[in-house]
């Protein structure tokens, strides 16, 4: 007699099938929950670590009049409501206004904790505050999605969390790892653009053309160069869009060259350099929009040079491979100027990125 006719064996085969038919989703939910719980625990540790680092930094370096813990905790829960986009006309202006209002508020908030604070410390604390606030938000959202799925016992609801979690973890880990570099004022991978342009303008006269943005005017092989970068060595990206608008208002510009760090694709080498067209600038998109708008209105071609890197490399201490590319990128900028412009023309060169630890 074969096993397939044995009633006991049939039961052993059929029971799991019945179990999976009726309770499959719950079993999958249990297995997936374990992985997500681990991720949430890690996110919670990042959140607590960033908050503790921030509070310690403020206490040890800013000499606040009173204990800043409560104020910082209050600020971490601040939210930003993005403008309605049902009618997209004028949305960029609205987003820019909202984001800048938040930045101004953050700066004033920090100044109220320590009225005598200098600009470099202010930018540093502002960045640490943004990191802590972002980590808190990521933790809160992932935890909410997980608990909702569990409460509803709804397996499909947990799938988006499971899919997006590895990407969120990569960003959160990068943000958590960036804290020491910001605290000590070390250059970041994203600072390669400002590093290249900063050295180009090192021995020349500089002026502040727009908020936290430095400009130097130099001559190169009978061409006029307008060198732009965020004002270092504080942690800021400046406002290159406003600066470009001011330059274009007063001068006829023939080309714009942007140097920035860009996210590499999987399989690409870190610190590899590539050239292309179009505005190389990240962020929420308002600056990119403005730069493209100015270029289109004035028929100015935009060339770009990017240095590829991972998310973690971009916001943590600059790696040796990226730092070693600075001279190469600088020579490519000069090469690009000679290839695309003629004598007597004017070019704007923008070093895009966070200028933490990179002066000019």
């Amino acid at each position, binding site marked *: 007699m074969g096993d397939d006719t044995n009633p006991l064996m049939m039961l052993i085969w059929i029971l799991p099938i019945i179990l999976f038919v009726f309770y499959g989703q719950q079993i999958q939910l249990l297995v997936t929950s374990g992985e997500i719980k681990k991720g949430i625990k890690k996110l919670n540790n990042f959140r607590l670590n960033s908050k503790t680092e921030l509070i310690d930094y403020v206490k040890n370096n800013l000499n606040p009049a009173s204990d800043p813990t409560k104020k910082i905790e209050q600020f971490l829960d601040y939210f930003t409501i993005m403008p309605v986009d049902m009618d997209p006309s004028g949305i960029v202006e609205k987003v820019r206004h909202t984001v800048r209002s938040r930045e101004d508020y953050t700066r004033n908030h920090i100044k109220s904790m320590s009225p005598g604070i200098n600009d470099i410390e202010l930018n540093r604390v502002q960045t640490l505050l943004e990191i802590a606030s972002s980590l808190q938000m990521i933790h809160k959202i992932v935890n909410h999605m997980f608990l909702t799925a569990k409460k509803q016992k709804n397996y499909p609801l947990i799938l988006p969390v499971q899919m997006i979690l590895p990407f969120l973890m990569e960003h959160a880990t990068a943000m958590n790892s960036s804290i020491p570099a910001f605290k*000590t*004022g*070390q*250059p970041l991978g994203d600072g390669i653009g400002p*590093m290249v342009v*900063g*050295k180009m303008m*090192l021995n020349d006269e500089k002026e502040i053309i727009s908020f936290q943005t430095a400009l130097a005017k130099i001559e190169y092989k009978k061409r006029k160069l307008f060198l732009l970068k965020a004002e270092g*060595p504080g942690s800021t990206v400046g406002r290159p869009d406003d600066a470009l608008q001011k330059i274009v208002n007063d001068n006829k510009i023939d080309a714009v060259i942007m140097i920035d760090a860009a996210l590499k694709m999987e399989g690409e080498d870190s610190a590899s350099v590539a050239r292309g067209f179009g505005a190389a600038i990240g962020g929420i998109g308002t600056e990119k929009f403005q730069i493209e708008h100015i270029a289109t209105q004035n028929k100015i071609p935009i060339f770009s040079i990017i240095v590829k890197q991972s998310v973690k490399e971009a916001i*943590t*201490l*600059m*790696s*040796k491979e*990226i*730092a*070693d590319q*600075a001279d190469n990128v600088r020579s490519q900028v000069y090469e690009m100027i000679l290839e695309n412009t003629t004598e007597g023309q004017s070019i704007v060169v923008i070093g895009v990125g966070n200028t933490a*630890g*990179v*002066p*000019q």
Partner: protein
Amino acid sequence: MIFSKEKTILAYTVEKCTKCEKLHKRDFIAGDVLFTNSSNCSFCGEVTLIEKIFGEVLE
């Protein structure tokens, strides 16, 4: 934590002599800022400029 995947990254500063252009790599010290004057060159005694600050994974 012998099984930890976390890598230790050490920060270094590279100084470049403004006269003989010799490079000198040393550990990063708090307060080091790119393109600022640093110690004197060990070869010619001229002042050096901080050329690079970067991190390397401890092997």
